[in-house]
């Protein structure tokens, strides 16, 4: 059985940037911490960003991208300039909103990746992250969050933004939206109760909808501020496996060692838990006795991004269990769930589960979330994960 004395796993799951002694990683960190210097140097000639007051160009023209990025999570060309609009609590929900300039992203529809260019009328990229107000756990909105933007009492935009993953913001609802010129804007955010199974103290916590209102002034001073805050990664450090540091408000899932139950599938056996991997995702696995109160062992599967530890919703994992070469359960669905301790994960109570069982966890659909730069080449074809269960 796992106990609290087991060493933490900072290396493989949490902050590779801190723990890894490779020079290139340190250089990235340094470049990012420097925020302004390297960034402003690279900024020359790059200010005509769409929606930023320029004529003609757009962010895809003026902001650099990474040529031929690797098929893993990679360090993007820059850190976006962002203006926080504040944090508002409503019941159990904590809403944090931000705006940036409109920028390109990628949609994942089933097995298809499609890049989304910036629309002609797009002015800003509006983002809203939702967390549990008490525990800070990310609540995936699944595209159900709605934003209504009003100016002088008139509706300017009304949409259900995409569920998106960004190295900087984590999992959030976001989209490029058009505004109606310079002025004051009010953003009303509403979110229905999450559809995911709610376990632990989350059971019954999110029975009602939540809403929040934010405001911002769209003008040259905001555009200047957003542009000034763009921070460029040194060219030599772009496109290498890695990630930029997330904002403080980005919701992470717990370290594997903080998951309930006993961790399974350690890849190294060195005493630190090194989770199985699938298309660059870390897939932490644990078994917890009687977790749902049904007397059965609960198989908990927690796929997360490497480095920044963001949850990966929008999958439908299933497990096949073999014992001594004989299949004892085939293709058992693991249901998406949110939990006060484990955060977003997939899981199922499985009475048949025994130590020594061989599990194959298949993830036929890649995480159906839109991607910001640095995540569009990873988590697209999720290889199955094989684990032989130890004691719990």
């Amino acid at each position, binding site marked *: 059985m796992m106990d609290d004395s087991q060493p933490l796993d900072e290396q493989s799951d949490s902050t590779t940037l801190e723990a890894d002694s490779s020079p290139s990683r340190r250089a990235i960190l340094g470049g990012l911490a420097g925020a302004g210097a390297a960034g402003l140097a690279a900024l020359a000639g790059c200010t005509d960003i769409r929606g930023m007051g320029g004529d003609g160009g757009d962010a895809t023209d003026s902001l650099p991208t990474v040529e031929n990025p690797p098929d893993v999570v990679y360090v993007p060309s820059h850190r976006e300039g962002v203006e926080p609009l504040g944090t508002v609590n409503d019941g159990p929900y904590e809403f944090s909103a931000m705006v940036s300039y409109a920028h390109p992203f990628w949609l994942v529809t089933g097995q298809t990746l499609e890049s989304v260019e910036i*629309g002609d009328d797009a002015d800003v990229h509006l983002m809203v992250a939702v967390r549990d107000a008490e525990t800070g756990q990310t609540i995936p909105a699944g*595209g159900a969050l709605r934003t209504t933007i009003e100016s002088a009492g008139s509706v300017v935009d009304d949409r259900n933004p995409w569920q998106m993953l960004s190295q900087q913001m984590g999992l959030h609802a976001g989209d490029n939206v058009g505004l109606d010129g310079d002025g004051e804007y009010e953003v009303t955010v509403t979110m*229905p109760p999450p559809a995911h199974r709610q376990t632990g103290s989350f059971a019954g916590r999110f029975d009602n*909808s939540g809403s929040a209102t934010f405001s911002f002034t769209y003008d040259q001073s905001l555009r200047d501020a957003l542009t000034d805050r763009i921070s460029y990664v040194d060219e030599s450090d772009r496109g290498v496996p890695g990630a930029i540091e997330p904002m403080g408000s980005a919701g992470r899932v717990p370290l594997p060692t903080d998951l309930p139950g006993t961790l399974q599938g350690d890849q190294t056996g060195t005493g630190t838990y090194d989770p199985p991997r699938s298309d660059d995702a870390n897939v932490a696995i644990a078994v917890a006795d009687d977790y749902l109160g049904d007397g059965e062992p609960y198989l908990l599967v927690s796929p997360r991004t490497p480095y920044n530890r963001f949850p990966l919703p929008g999958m*439908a994992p299933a497990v096949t269990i073999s014992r001594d070469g004989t299949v004892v359960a085939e293709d058992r669905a693991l*249901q998406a769930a949110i939990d006060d301790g484990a955060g977003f994960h997939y899981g199922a109570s499985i009475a048949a589960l025994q130590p020594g069982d061989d599990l194959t966890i298949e993830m036929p*659909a890649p995480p159906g979330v839109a991607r910001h730069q640095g995540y569009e080449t990873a988590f697209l074809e999720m290889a199955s994960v094989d684990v032989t269960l130890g004691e719990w």
Partner: protein
Amino acid sequence: MTLPDRDDVSRRKFLQAAVAVGGAAGLSACLGESDGGGTERIDAPAGGSLDDRPARQHAWNDVLERDQDGNVRPPAHHVLADFSLVADGTPGDSDRETVEEALRELERAIALQPDGLLFTVGYTPAYFDRFDEQLPDDVDLPDPGPVTYLENSETIAFDTHDLTVHLASDDPAVVLAAEEALLGNRETLNGHEMATSFDGVLERAGEPDDRRTGFVGPGLPAQKQDEGEVEGMPDHDIAEGAPFWMGYRSGFQESQATEEYVEIEGGAFAGGTTQHVETLRVQINTWFDQDSHHERVSKLFSHVHADEDRVGEFGEKLGTSTGIMDAVDDTATDARDPGVVGHAQKAAREREDGVPPLLRRDFNTTVAGNLPGVHFLALQDEISTFERVRRAMAGEELAENGAVSVRQNNGILQYLSVLRRGNYLVPPRAHRSLPTPNP
């Protein structure tokens, strides 16, 4: 009809704008010869005898035209005119006679045909709440409320006025003139003297801004887009042949219930039907500019329809059937792998032995902020039938058990926001005028 030549705008554009503006002003604009008294002429086929009017108000299909594939083609222009009783309490026999006579005047004035006038009168649960008596068990007409788990009752309006007259015609001037005639703002309609109107018994419900209008038909969404007066339009061109904002044909014969199928079977309202009107905001800028055609077809029909290119640019390949029954049994597995399900695929799960339970008569509109929207008007035997299909479309269990999210990759839910809902009883013609709960 007589219309002024206009240099700067097309005739159709001008007429659709007039339907949206509505009222006497809209009609004047429509005909360009207002004398302020609401006597503008329209030129529609005359109604004549009332003897051959069908017993069912919703029996429109026999007179509607068909498209090249044989699908019923809905009238192009629509108004949902909302009314409430002027007085509190229950209506009396004289009120009933007034309303019936006004409706008969419409029928005498204009023929039941697409270039004439088609209409139904539907009553809300709030109307029947005026009576102590209950509706018979044959009628399923609950108060409107949120239907799916995605809806927030605080952001949706629910219809509590008394009745709605659904007016439809290929000629926008006709629906406008008919609405004005019912309100008592016209002395003549199509050359027929209006001896009676709703005036004194019924009044317009809601604010003038709440008028519900719309249009449907191949080319009309593309035309709206060209005109550039609706906000929230995509950069991508809507297909010329598309009748709906979302750019694809819909309402295929094989997907539509028959008028018989949606009838109430027994009791005093036998031959009537129930009507649900759901008003939706439709995010077509995202739909067209961010999704590809392949993604749109995957989300509207099924990923197989997309992979096999079964649909064509705007559904022109589909004839009279979406062929969705091939994909319906795979809905739950598609939600897991590849992780996208189609709207039609989800809804078709509620067919009974392959028979669709709803008769859709939806049309395009604009909603708050002059953004694209839809009045999703559906007829069915019971409101619970609508709710069942609508919940299947919401696909909650697909999000719980599949890789699709509550909206994302879950049909077209990402692009829709419900703004308003209303439930109605559309009685048979014999009881269409201020019926008691058990006439």
